[in-house]
């Protein structure tokens, strides 16, 4: 079965600045993938290219095997997209927003959409601009899901929401995943909730993929090593060091397992997902700091 999203050397340049560069990844169907990275990492650019809002400057992107720009008519009905600001027509009522969905999508499920709005306890006559942030997000999500996409792309969907609205939003998403064959890719710079909801992770930093894989595998394969300072270089030669930090007498390393056995002088600790991600993001920041200072 074709992967849900495949990129190959994908890049986007605005003027002389690359917002995304050399991005190669493959996201299988049925997964819920987190796209993680600091602001400006290229997450939004990647998602926009996947849905055809932006054209690549380099490389290629395929969604469900289709080119989102060339095959737009075929791809758009099958790919749902929710932009960060949860765009809706402010002066419209909820009923009118549903009508927009109905008129613009041949595969629209009106019954499910109405049922969902009723579940949310929102009157159809209510104007969109009078909705709270969380309600707005839910209405926008209803719109994205009611066209019954096979792939759902969410750009920082919960960044602007309070914790309860965040939880409710993600509940809706995973419920939809459980309900049907839905692949989800969501970008976020909030790491906390990701481990619950996602089974795959892609780390983007400085517009490049740093790490990609299943969360279970990532957590199982990364370790924190603490050991004597002078051993550091030897270890670095043997192991895949993600981040290192040195105290006067002690060195701490975050490493990715590559089959080597750790020397007995090193104490090995497990890491949770958040720590691993921060190690990758921190390595990147450190490199940038060095580049600036040197």
């Amino acid at each position, binding site marked *: 079965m074709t992967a849900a999203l495949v990129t190959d050397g994908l890049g986007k340049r605005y003027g002389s600045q690359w917002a995304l560069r050399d991005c190669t990844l493959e996201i299988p169907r049925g997964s819920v993938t987190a796209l993680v990275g600091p602001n400006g990492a290229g997450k939004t650019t990647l998602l926009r290219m996947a849905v055809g809002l932006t054209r690549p400057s380099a490389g290629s992107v395929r969604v469900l095997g289709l080119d989102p720009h060339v095959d737009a008519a075929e791809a758009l009905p099958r790919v749902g997209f929710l932009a960060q600001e949860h765009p809706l027509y402010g002066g419209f009522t909820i009923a009118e927003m549903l009508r927009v969905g109905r008129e613009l999508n041949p595969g629209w499920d009106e019954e499910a959409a109405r049922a969902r709005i009723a579940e949310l306890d929102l009157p159809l006559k209510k104007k969109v601009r009078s909705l709270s942030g969380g309600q707005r997000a839910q209405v926008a999500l209803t719109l994205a899901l009611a066209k019954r996409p096979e792939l759902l792309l969410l750009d920082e969907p919960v960044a602007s929401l309070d914790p309860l609205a965040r939880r409710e939003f*993600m509940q809706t998403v*995973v419920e939809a995943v459980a309900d049907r064959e839905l692949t989800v890719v969501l970008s976020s710079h909030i790491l906390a909730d990701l481990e619950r*909801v996602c089974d795959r992770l892609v780390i983007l930093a400085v517009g490049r993929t740093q790490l990609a894989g299943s969360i279970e595998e990532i957590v199982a394969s990364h370790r924190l090593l603490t050991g004597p300072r002078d051993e550091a270089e030897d270890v670095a030669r043997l192991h895949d060091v993600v981040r290192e930090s040195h105290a006067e007498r002690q060195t701490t390393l975050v490493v990715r397992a590559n089959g080597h056995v750790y020397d007995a002088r090193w104490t090995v600790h497990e890491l949770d997902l958040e720590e691993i991600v921060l190690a990758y993001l921190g390595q990147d920041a450190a490199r940038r700091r060095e580049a600036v200072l040197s």
Partner: protein
Amino acid sequence: MALIEFHLDSRSGVPTYLQLVQQVRHAVQLGILTPGDQLPTVKEVVAGLAINPNTVLKAYGVLESEGIAEGRRGQGTFVKSSAPAPLGDDLGRLRRSLRDWFGRARAAGLDEQAIEALLSEQRASGSARRVA
């Protein structure tokens, strides 16, 4: 309406799917769930906890392999008719030996935090993760 409701302790260090497995086992042992009862559907669990559906599928898979539950196509997952009966005597014996152990641990000078750390460590080493 689902028969039981799951909860998660995100700080326990125990993987989510294992927590679900333990809670089902616990419910069966206490008699809250009896053979033939339906476990909450994947959709119900996922909607309640906002977790990945695969996690629930994994938990239910483990329960099936342990013989505690069985999946019926198109209907859901059910507590198996041959689920191990509540322990009864075993439970009493285990409880007593635990009481003894706690007494010995405190006598050895361990405070509550040290005991907690010891318990977590042993619990975690029983799970799937292995040190490389």
